[in-house]
């Protein structure tokens, strides 16, 4: 029990973080059919944005916490306007692959910009709770509780937004049938812009949370992004609830594998499981032939 506890806590915490990362990825894939390879860089920048305000400029924490949301949303919007929109307009048929390459370039440029500005040495994120909670012999750091709580609130908020609001319904409509949405008066370009900004804002927040239990480094977002992608894939790309479920399950498996076999075997085992699942079900666990649905 004294060993299982921390592994469980770590697994659930990283599961929550992966789940948050998959939300942004799934939204963008679902609405535009776009794999945003710069998503990881948005995580990184979110972490550094909060760090800049809180530690370097001494801003109060409520301001510093908003910085990743704003910066992430802005960069997300710029990525749409400068990269995705022209690619979509020019060659819609090869958009799916072209945009992966283009955003891959954006990701490297952004990551390198962070490296040039802040240097490669790791920083600690100052916005974090200290202390821990003790429940049934298990120590749970307050920061981990906070992370899970924030993720749950954000997930509920996103779900409410998509299901109940006019803008959210328009996003789902665009994802399910773009042309029909246009005929009903939905300005699809603006919906895409909103989706990328929303996804960027969530990514920024996710980056802040990740950095609060690890450290800030220019490659902060790369690992969560790749794993989040893998989780989206296993659930079927664009399947939001499926991806969130997969994130928690796979994060727990990874945590136990890392504990039992050593940290270096966590990711390989994860990938092996994912590949086996995909051989069994090529469209993902919950996927259908056309998985671009929200």
């Amino acid at each position: 029990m004294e060993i299982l506890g921390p592994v469980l806590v770590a697994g659930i915490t990283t599961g929550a973080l992966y789940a948050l990362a998959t939300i942004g990825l799934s939204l963008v894939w679902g609405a535009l059919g776009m794999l945003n390879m710069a998503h990881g860089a948005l995580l990184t920048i979110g972490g550094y944005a909060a760090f800049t305000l809180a530690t370097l400029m001494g801003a109060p924490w409520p301001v510093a916490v908003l910085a990743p949301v704003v910066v992430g949303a802005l960069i997300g919007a710029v990525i749409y306007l400068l990269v995705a929109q022209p690619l979509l307009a020019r060659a819609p048929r090869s958009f799916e692959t072209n945009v992966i390459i283009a955003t891959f370039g954006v990701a490297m440029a952004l990551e390198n910009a962070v490296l040039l500005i802040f240097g490669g040495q790791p920083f600690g994120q100052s916005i974090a709770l200290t202390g821990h909670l003790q429940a049934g012999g298990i120590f749970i750091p307050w920061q981990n509780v906070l992370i899970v709580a924030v993720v749950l609130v954000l997930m509920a908020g996103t779900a409410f937004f998509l299901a109940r609001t006019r803008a959210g319904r328009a996003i789902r409509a665009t994802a399910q049938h773009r042309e029909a949405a246009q005929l009903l008066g939905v300005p699809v370009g603006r919906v895409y812009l909103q989706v990328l900004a929303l996804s960027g804002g969530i990514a920024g927040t996710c980056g802040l949370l990740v950095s609060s239990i690890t450290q800030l480094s220019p490659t902060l977002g790369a690992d969560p992004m790749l794993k989040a992608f893998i989780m989206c894939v296993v659930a079927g790309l664009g399947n939001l609830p499926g991806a969130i479920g997969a994130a928690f399950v796979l994060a727990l498996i990874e945590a136990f594998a890392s504990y039992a076999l050593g940290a270096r075997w966590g990711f390989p085992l994860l990938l092996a499981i994912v590949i086996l699942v995909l051989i069994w079900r090529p469209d993902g666990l919950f996927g259908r032939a056309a998985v671009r649905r929200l």
Partner: protein
Amino acid sequence: MSRADRGHLVFGLIVLAALAALPFVADSRYVLGQVILALFYAIVASQWNLLFGFAGVFSLGQMALFAFGGYATAMLGFYLDWSMWVAMPVAAVGTVLFSLVIGLACLRLAGAYVALLTLAVAQVMYLLIVTDTDCFVMQGATCRQFTGGAVGFARFGDLGTRAIFKGDYVVANYAIVAALFLLTMGFTWAVIRSPLGLAFQALRDNPGCAVARGINRFSTQLLVFGASAFFTGLAGGLYAAHFQAIGPGVLSLSTLMFIIAIAVVGGIGKLWGPLVGAVILVLADEALREVGGDYRTLGLGLIIAAAMVLMPKGVIGLVESMVARLRPASGRAAEFVKSGT
């Protein structure tokens, strides 16, 4: 022989002449070294281009294949004292087998899934190598991991050119690399114009239609994935033998990105695109180094994004459309240039 083939051949002969003349023109060892590097990049990029630009396989695991060939060559030399000339082809065959395992696991899936899974495979390979800390053999007082760990392998043998040509060995190595490059291009050309190559292009242009006409997408793509892995692995082996070193750095994302940038800038789906792209990007890389090496990755990233958005058909596509616009009357000449590159 079709007009397209004639164009490819003419361009190929020009490249051959340029490659042959280069050692007499460029006497600096540094320049020759950079050209060798550019040729390695062009080889890997040409196979990525064959996969993506012609066969429609979006692999982000090409550097994993390159690294497999390089590491296998180095390890055969290091642990078993094999000659590089034996180790390289064996390693290349090993790379094909490795690629078939990856292909069997990933290629059944659709475009974006393939990209993510192959990227993940490369990333896992990188992580397993750099986090390897278990001692496999002791080398003097230092511990040596089976995979070489974060340091990699060095001093596992060379191409034998140093013993024969002494100071001019770089020229000999250059000739070997250039030969492999031409061989790779010949192979790529043969694949493109074979019935199989035409099937690939049918698959790429219209997946549904080609499948309906009886082309098995999966086995066709697996075949080209395996074939291209041979040359990618062989290039990796030659890379290790030429530099007499190999490390996990070849698996880094920035290396993969450099390869993709080459293909994109040159022109995806153009036979000679990777060579044109390699020349341009190695020159750009040199220029960025002058400005300050720190901006190298930043510049590369922006180049990829900008090239993809502004000239999706690359430099070759740009030249083609410029020629087509300049000479609307002379349709034949435009067509010749169009098919020639």
